[in-house]
């Protein structure tokens, strides 16, 4: 028996479509996009495209699909990682790769401690690793070795998030679990103290974010799932505070009126600077859903559906710039067959995401025209790879994104079935069929 159920998809190239990713510097000094193995950064301060410098690699920076990109909270570091099993840590000052850490397995999620001293990444076996980047100060740091810190047994970790005050690291997985672990003083020795589990989702958990403000600096956790709900949690006890069914709302928008459960998985979410709003991307929704979050009442409710007119735009990732109140959205995939653009991405921006909740929701025209996007056509050309595309390409991309998500779900279930059936046949002498 192979020891790697999680790598099952590797043989099946059809599902190797990677959704496009986007990240924004905390002060919006730069914006980064990943499509397939391609990493693109635009410097908004200098109003120019960035050339990344990586002395360790000959030419191509990443050799396979990038699955996670992220800026640190203080904006000094940026991390990219994915299927090539490399975790690249960049200085946002010089855009030099200051360290390349090798992972044993493909990487599914990354996080940087709020103080910028450690980088954590999750591999496809559910292990979260930690690397000490203290003292790097933008200089190259060599031979950094990652230490295993915690593990979700045999499950893919989809999201890693530090709590706003940094005491906890939160990890979500494909087995509907969210684990809250105390982040220790010496993380290289492991994070052993589990604070709580947030249990309630009935399908894979796809994304996490914190909603916090001055009144609630510890924040509340918001999670999105394949069960088409967004949930609000108190993490120190793992208490489920509220559940918002988003799937039905997304279904309303589908042109054919078909409300298929498999297509309303939550793919990403993001909170605004005072924790009053949550923007939600849904697998088959052309646009985003806005939820109002009331931290003192501990409730989440549907506020509005924002459709993005003019083109087929199903966002694959959302990210907010807290300083400017812009919500950056991206859609796109790599390896799109039969099209001239093999790595298509489209960036759109919504403004006013930090406004007092009410004004923002009332506003009808939230999506910026391309020429109003910071950085304008220079930025779009860099991040998208082109300024304009044929509409057909978007339709194809939307389909590909849907299939990629759908396939992923089915593949996971097939694996679960396989495991159980094998266990029943008793074919496996050692009985532990789960990881066989």
């Amino acid at each position, binding site marked *: 028996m192979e020891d790697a159920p999680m790598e099952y998809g590797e043989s099946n190239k059809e599902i190797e479509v990677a959704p496009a990713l986007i990240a924004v510097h905390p002060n919006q000094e730069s914006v980064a996009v990943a499509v397939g193995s391609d990493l693109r950064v635009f410097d908004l301060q200098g109003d120019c495209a960035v050339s990344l410098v990586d002395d360790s690699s000959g030419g191509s920076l990443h050799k396979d699909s990038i699955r996670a990109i992220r800026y640190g909270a203080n904006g000094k570091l940026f991390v990219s990682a994915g299927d090539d099993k490399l975790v690249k840590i960049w200085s946002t000052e010089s855009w030099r790769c200051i360290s390349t850490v090798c992972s044993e397995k493909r990487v599914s999620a990354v996080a940087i401690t709020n103080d910028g001293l450690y980088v954590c990444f999750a591999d496809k076996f559910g292990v979260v690793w930690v690397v000490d980047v203290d003292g790097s100060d933008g200089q190259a740091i060599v031979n950094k070795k990652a230490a295993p810190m*915690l593990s979700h*047994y045999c499950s893919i970790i989809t999201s890693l998030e530090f709590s706003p005050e940094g005491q906890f690291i939160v990890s979500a997985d494909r087995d509907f679990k969210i684990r809250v672990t105390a982040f220790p003083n010496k993380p290289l020795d492991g994070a052993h103290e*589990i604070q709580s*589990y947030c249990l309630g989702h009935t399908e894979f958990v796809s994304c996490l974010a914190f909603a916090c403000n001055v009144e609630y600096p510890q924040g509340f956790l918001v999670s999105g799932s394949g069960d088409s709900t967004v949930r609000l949690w108190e993490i120190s006890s793992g208490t489920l505070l509220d*559940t918002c069914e988003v799937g039905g709302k997304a279904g309303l928008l589908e042109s054919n009126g078909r409300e298929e459960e498999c297509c309303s998985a939550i793919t990403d979410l993001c909170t605004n600077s005072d924790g009053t709003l949550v923007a939600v991307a849904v697998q088959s929704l052309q646009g985003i859903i806005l939820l109002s979050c009331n931290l003192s009442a501990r409730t989440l409710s549907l506020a509005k559906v924002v459709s993005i007119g003019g083109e087929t735009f199903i966002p694959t990732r959302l990210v907010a710039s807290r300083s400017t109140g812009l919500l950056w959205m991206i859609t796109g995939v790599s390896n799109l067959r039969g099209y001239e653009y093999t790595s298509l991405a489209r960036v759109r921006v919504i403004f006013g995401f930090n406004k007092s909740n009410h004004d923002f929701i009332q506003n009808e025209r939230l999506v910026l025209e391309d020429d109003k996007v910071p950085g304008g056509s220079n930025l779009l050309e860099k991040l998208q790879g082109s300024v304009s595309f044929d509409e057909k390409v978007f339709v194809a991309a939307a389909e590909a994104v849907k299939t990629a998500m759908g396939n992923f779900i089915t593949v996971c279930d*097939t694996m*679960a079935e396989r495991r159980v059936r094998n266990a029943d046949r008793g074919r496996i002498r*050692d009985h532990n069929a789960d990881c066989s």
Partner: protein
Amino acid sequence: MLANEANPTISKSTGLPRKRFYRARAHSNPLSDSHFPIPIAPLHVDYSLHYPQVFAASDEVQVSKKVQFADIGCGFGGLLISLSTLFPETLMIGMELRDKVTEYVKERISGLRVANPGQYQNISVVRTNSMKYIPNYFEKGQLSKMFFLFPDPHFKEKNHRRRVISPHLLDEYAYAIGVGGIIYTITDVEELGDWMKACLESHPMFEALTFEELESDPVVNLLSSATEEGQKVARNGGQTFQAVYRRVQPS
């Protein structure tokens, strides 16, 4: 604890229990009827089905009882049966991955209940993968004893991660066991015995019981004698290696 209005098993609009009380895989293979239900959270496990007589009692104390002992990879259930009469007031559960074996244990327990009215009401078994779903069954600090008797050895180095005792899984067990609770392990495979001891020894939330404590703990004797596997080893005159550790507050 989930607040009632946020209870995901109850539909907000209808107030009725949702169909997906237990997670049904929406995309599961219809030809396979062998998947086991996974409770969404400990609150959703209906223990009154496991211990009907205990939960039928009218007194509050009985009805609010929680499972305190868990026998992981319980096999044919010999340990549970010995512990049942030794701790008649304590609820205990076996967790077993194999379907047929789980069914056997269930029948064995109901047989004992019929033959000995009033007895064996405190033991039960669930079919699950303990390596993945412990937090779905037990709340933080709920358990006072956890047993790992004669677990599968997984000799090859690359399979060590499949062992039921590992540094990372101990974090989960430390979560489920309350401070002062005890984890019992035993094996006839020396290498595995060393491994389990080493994992426990280097974990900041476990500390070895002293010789005196081991001597005075009535459960320790059962480790090598109560289970089917233990009896087999004893018949063949095999050696056993045990490690018994207490859950402590990390310093």
